[in-house]
């Protein structure tokens, strides 16, 4: 990162690291957006089918959570462009989400929700 310069009107202007600032990879095209949406719809269909399928009852919760995580990551990465945008946005979002997951996992563990 190079040394910051100063702008009289706006204060210090920091030259950002390419990953922090403005360098971006190209966003997906419209065809890719449609493909991603079809994959998301297919995963949703599998989720619903799983919830009725007695043979997978033993692994139902982990399987559904895994599929839900895949959908979550795909929407955030591709539709919200977090995969292509500045790393700062990723950090802001992950900080909030990580804090929420940590706090509420501790809360639910305190009340023995997992072992009921």
């Amino acid at each position, binding site marked *: 990162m190079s040394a910051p310069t100063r702008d009289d009107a706006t204060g210090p202007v920091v030259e950002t690291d390419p990953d922090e600032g403005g360098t971006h990879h190209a966003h997906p*095209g419209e065809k890719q957006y449609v493909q991603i949406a079809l994959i998301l719809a297919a995963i949703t269909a599998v989720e619903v089918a799983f919830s009725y399928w007695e043979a997978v009852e033993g692994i139902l919760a982990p399987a559904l959570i895994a599929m839900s995580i895949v959908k979550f990551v795909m929407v955030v990465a591709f539709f919200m462009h977090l995969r292509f945008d500045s790393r700062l946005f990723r950090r802001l979002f992950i900080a909030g989400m990580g804090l929420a997951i940590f706090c509420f996992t501790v809360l639910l563990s305190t009340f023995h929700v997992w072992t009921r």
Partner: protein
Amino acid sequence: MSTVTASSGSHTEIDAGHPPTSTGLSNEKVAMWSFLGSECMLFGALISTYLLFKGQSEPGTIAPVDVFDIPYTSVSSFVLLMSSLTMVLALAAIQRGDQRLTRIWILATALLGASFVAGQAYEFTVFVREGMNLRVNLFSSSFFVLTGFHGAHVTIGVLMLLSLYSLSMRGKLPSSKAETVELVGLYWHFVDVVWIVIFTLIYLIP
């Protein structure tokens, strides 16, 4: 002299006419991502409250298995998922300067969002008829608060989309303001990912 450090990508971080920012990133976008990060805490609290109270209701009172209609909610989930596609297509359209398609996709997103809210309102009325309300037991109260908050977020999103449509119709949404559509889109996709979590944890996992 200012130092403009952001290089152009598939869309510009700092619109022409905006003063340079200290990070080289759009302040509005930084604010939106910070807001969405904080929203994770809100929905995290509501979801964990539901999980905490699930199965803790008095025996003999209404339970999730008595009322949930999975096929119906699956269709609602599909509608919201597809609204994320139309939203991102609206952004792509405005970034390449196609005003007509931008309006079509924004309106399609608003209509899909409104269908989701209407579906939720119908689901709530069915549940109330079945005997659920905010005070009947812990499951009912935490369910209504969680899904009600999510529905309120979708409703706010629909209002923002209709405002964008109105701005576009009056010629006040040129492609140089694509970031406005992007910001509304970020909010909209976030509402969608929250539903992805709610649908799995609340409806599908017994």
